[in-house]
């Protein structure tokens, strides 16, 4: 007789029952990338030129348990709004080798960012969860931020990207 219920933080994970979808923000963008139109391309190039002096690259090193299969999917955010379930600024993916997957985001303006990652073991491009909304694939956040049973707030995962920013090392759990 005992009744222990240490309970997944269901509300914060928002697991869908029928579809079993939990979104830590690392899912695919809502729409596949479109070919940029000329005007957008021009604006982006102009913006890129303006920022070149302060652009930085970000290297994310994700440690993956040796016995696990699948690609690492990473999502980059630059603000707390929508973190980590909203539409990310960028997504990237990498295959692990020797227990590590390296994800790169390049040409980022200096600023504060947070990253969420998960291991897509069944290649369905989403973080799977059980019927109570608890993730069933490994996941992690920049600064290895973790809260009791749900995603951490942006501030806990946020780090500064600038010139000579060190790589972020994230352990998948």
């Amino acid at each position, binding site marked *: 007789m005992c009744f*222990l219920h240490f309970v*997944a933080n*269901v509300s914060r994970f928002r697991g869908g029952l029928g579809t079993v979808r939990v979104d830590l923000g690392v899912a695919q963008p809502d729409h596949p990338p479109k070919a940029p139109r000329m005007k957008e391309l021009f604006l982006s190039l102009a913006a890129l030129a303006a920022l070149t002096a302060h652009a930085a690259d970000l290297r994310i090193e994700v440690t993956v348990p040796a016995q696990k299969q699948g690609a690492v999917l990473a999502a980059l955010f630059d603000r707390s709004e929508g973190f980590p379930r909203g539409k990310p600024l960028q997504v990237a993916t990498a295959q692990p080798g020797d227990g590590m997957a390296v994800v790169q985001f390049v040409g980022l303006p200096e600023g504060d960012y947070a990253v969420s990652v998960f291991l897509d073991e069944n290649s369905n491009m989403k973080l799977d969860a059980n019927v109570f909304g608890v*993730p*069933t694939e490994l996941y992690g956040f920049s600064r290895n931020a973790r809260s009791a049973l749900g995603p951490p707030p942006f501030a806990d995962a946020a780090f500064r990207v600038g010139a000579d920013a060190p790589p972020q090392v994230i352990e998948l759990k």
Partner: protein
Amino acid sequence: MTHTHLPRRAVLAALGASLLPVLGHSAEAPDAWRSSYTPYNGPLKAPLASGPLPVQGRWPEALQGTLYRVGPARRELGGVAMDHWFDGDGMLQAFRFEQGQASTQAPPRVSHRGALLATPKLTAEEAAGRLLYSGFATTLPHAPPLSGPDDLNPANINLLALPARKELFALWEAGSALAVDPVTLQAQGFKAWSPETRGAPFSAHPRVAPDGSVWNFGYVPGSGKLLVYDIAPTGQLRRQHVLTTAQADMVHDFAITDRHLVFLLMPLQFHGQPGMGSPLPHYQWNDQAPLVVLLVDKADFKVQRFELPATGLFHLANAWEEGGTVQVRFVAQPDILHALRHLKVDGPRSTPAAPATRWAHITLTPATGQARLAYPGLAHVEFPRIHPARNGLPTRFTTLLERSAGMDAQVQGFDTVLTLRGDQTPQRHRYGAGWIAEEHVYVPASPGAAEGRGWVLGTAYHWPSERTTLSVFDAQAVNAGPLASVTLPYGLPLGLHGQFVPA
């Protein structure tokens, strides 16, 4: 040693007072429970293996197999301690009964093995050198963040045996079933019945139907959901289904009939922020709400809802269809929150006694929607067990534990094994002063034997000598005392539930 039949009182005397001077230590009444756990605290020790044990009395030759039991054991490491009964790493006990060699007419051999279950929790805490994770009733500061409930899973409540598949699982209430090797007792990892139920709660009281199907459920307090598992005799998950319902914040047990699942949902409500420390402080009793009965059709999961005067409960004995009604037998815990708060391993001292538990009958009439709750008069009982192959069929034979009036007020729990036999007078065996009885199971004499024929089998802890004894009774004559008993050269941590697996 001896296989002669000794009078019961002589056996008890030998096990009890006479050993005290030899052993040179003796727990005091308020420390009775704690004394059973102390040997298992601290860094992990080697598993227990008794080898052949001396039998007092005559062990029934036809009773061959293994009694598995599980319960919380280690509750202190690195100066961090937990004092609630339910908080402790699961330890699996296996009592084996084997036939002696026919050529030498050797008597049956009885032996014991015991091992703490190497859950991820135990492994992480062993590496850290201290307890890390909060429990049901104890919140530890600076607990590591969790990836899921199984990070905390101590696998310490009950067992599910699937002997045809040689599978054994140690169960908790809030997480997955832990697969265990039935011979070596080594943990083999958490069981996922399907991708959608991986890491989801698989409650500690699954019901094995007469056809070998396994029915179970899982719940998460505050979620408003009951997850139903329908598992084929092959061990394959046939169906999973989510019922949406209020008042499913603490559901320890359920029952099955031929056609239905029966849930008794008490008005104990969870108001906490889950995932953050112990959930116990966040439960409240709702005086205004009824006991809700959900009668769930096994075929299509359609639900009929009934209401009854409120009571708490832990355990159902059984349920069955009878003449257009559904009969349910269970043990009511009128003030379950009081019970939960005070199930500590230290003596109750100034704790006021909880209202008596009561044996209870429910009659549901689905055609009219009527429900009736009756208390036939048996009180101070718990741990009901029935014929293992009659889940969902009418049963008249039930074993229970009872607390006698003579039990030391400083010691919680039960001291008497009791058998209910239909309309006949219940039979009782009181272990006596210094004893705490653990759950006793009913083992049928054979698969086809009449209900009530066979044995009652269970353990009891003698706290003055800090030793555990296993006793076997003729199920028809429990009041005659044990047919045979075996006293271990050590005490076992006072545990929860067990399952007998025939050889």
